[in-house]
């Protein structure tokens, strides 16, 4: 991969910092009227999730990171690795627990997810914003209680536990917002 000079930094650019691929979350050009130019960057380390700020001088550069996001289909988990497939090429990728992280609780076989590849290895898995999952366990629904407050925990087919309204029954399919982990509606 090539180098990119600090003057060309842009939000969303992926670069190598201290050996790890990082995403530029925010880029700000800083220059006093009299004095040197700097580029202040908020970075997120894609391996560790650490977010911090780093300032570059105008003559500095960074190595671009071979990082790309690809849409894939979730196949199955063998207990140790999670397996995904590129639908157009049928190419399969295996992601470890570190890459899948919290996403595992939203993974349903056959669902589309976004896989972040670094040097062709999955380093992060991003679920769709909304998933539809079946309730496998919850207290019996309260008839007639359709809108008024109150909630209870429900366990979903993937093992995730979410707060749901009291009227939800076991076996129902629910729409969940994966960004907040909150119940949205019946599917």
């Amino acid at each position: 991969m090539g180098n990119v000079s600090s003057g060309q930094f842009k939000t969303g650019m992926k670069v190598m910092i201290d050996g790890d691929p990082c995403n530029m979350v925010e880029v700000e050009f800083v220059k006093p009227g009299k004095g040197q130019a700097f580029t202040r960057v908020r970075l997120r380390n894609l391996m560790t999730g650490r977010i911090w700020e780093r300032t570059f001088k105008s003559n500095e550069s960074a190595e671009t990171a071979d990082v790309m996001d690809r849409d894939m289909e979730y196949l199955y988990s063998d207990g140790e690795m999670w397996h995904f497939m590129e639908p157009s090429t049928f190419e399969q990728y295996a992601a470890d627990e570190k890459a899948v992280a919290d996403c595992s609780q939203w993974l349903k076989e056959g669902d589309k997810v976004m896989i972040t590849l670094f040097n062709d290895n999955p380093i992060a898995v991003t679920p769709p914003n909304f998933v539809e999952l079946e309730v496998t366990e919850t207290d019996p629904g309260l008839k007639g209680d359709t809108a008024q407050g109150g909630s209870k925990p429900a366990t979903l087919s993937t093992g995730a536990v979410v707060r749901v309204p009291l009227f939800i029954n076991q076996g129902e399919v629910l729409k969940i917002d994966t960004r907040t982990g909150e119940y949205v509606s019946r599917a």
Partner: protein
Amino acid sequence: MNRNHWQPTAEILTLRERAKMLADVRAFFAERGVMEVDTQCLSQAAVSDPFIDSLEVSYSSYPGAEEQRYYLQSSPEYAMKRLLAADSGPIYQLAKAFRNGEVGRLHNPEFTMLEWYRPRFSAQQLMDEVQALVTAVLGPQHWERLSYRELFKRFVGVDPHQATIDQLKALLEPHFECPFTDDRKDTWLELVMSHLIEPKLIEPVLVFDFPASQAALAEVVEDDQGVKVAARFELYAGGMELANGYQELRDPAEQAERLEADDQQRESSGLPRRPLETRLVSALESGIPACAGVALGFDRLLMIKVGASSIKEVVPFGFERC
């Protein structure tokens, strides 16, 4: 060029505010007997400042003729001082200024600079006038005046004239990783200023007595502690740098030396060397009145007025759409 991006980056309502501000500024100076000038954007000389890159244009006397290099002004300073030396008296200008490579939330490579010169004014008197002008545009606000030393002491607890590079670096490290070396102390002062102090200066603050090493075209004097300082001031407001003013350097020999020193630094930094404005030295030799001058970022002042967070919201077509 994206043909779908025809729309302006500023709202028409903001451009109305812009038009009003232009009219307000002109009325302000008309009332004070300051003459409006519009010097040329093109010059045979480039700015010497090693941290400002002039945009180049080529001129040919007919298509295909040999090209001559001209430079777009990075500020109207040189031209306006030549007018002062020609006895123009007090002058102001709403100038288009151009700086290569400067694009960001607070920078557009082409911007509008309000610059004015006041013969027989001290820097203090010019600060009064800057305050009056900004008040005329923005309305009354809480103003403060602090020396560069007082400012640093208040916000980061060090005396900038005494602090070492390591001390300045230690102030930055908890907030910003700066993993480079630089033997130029001003680099670290500029970092502390732009990263730690400037964002906190929301209400207007006039800062004076800058380090002598950051004098640019200002006179160098001694402060009350016997430290050499630049007779230069800056206005900060809305968390950004808004204006830069000087008690203007008038000594032609000193001016020639500073141009030369800038040129040397350009060479040692591997920057393109360009024709220096030697006519400024000649103008000073013929004599210019003792005066103070200031340049104010017109677009940034408008940003504060309309509450914009980016300069492209206050100019009709920001850089990516020009």
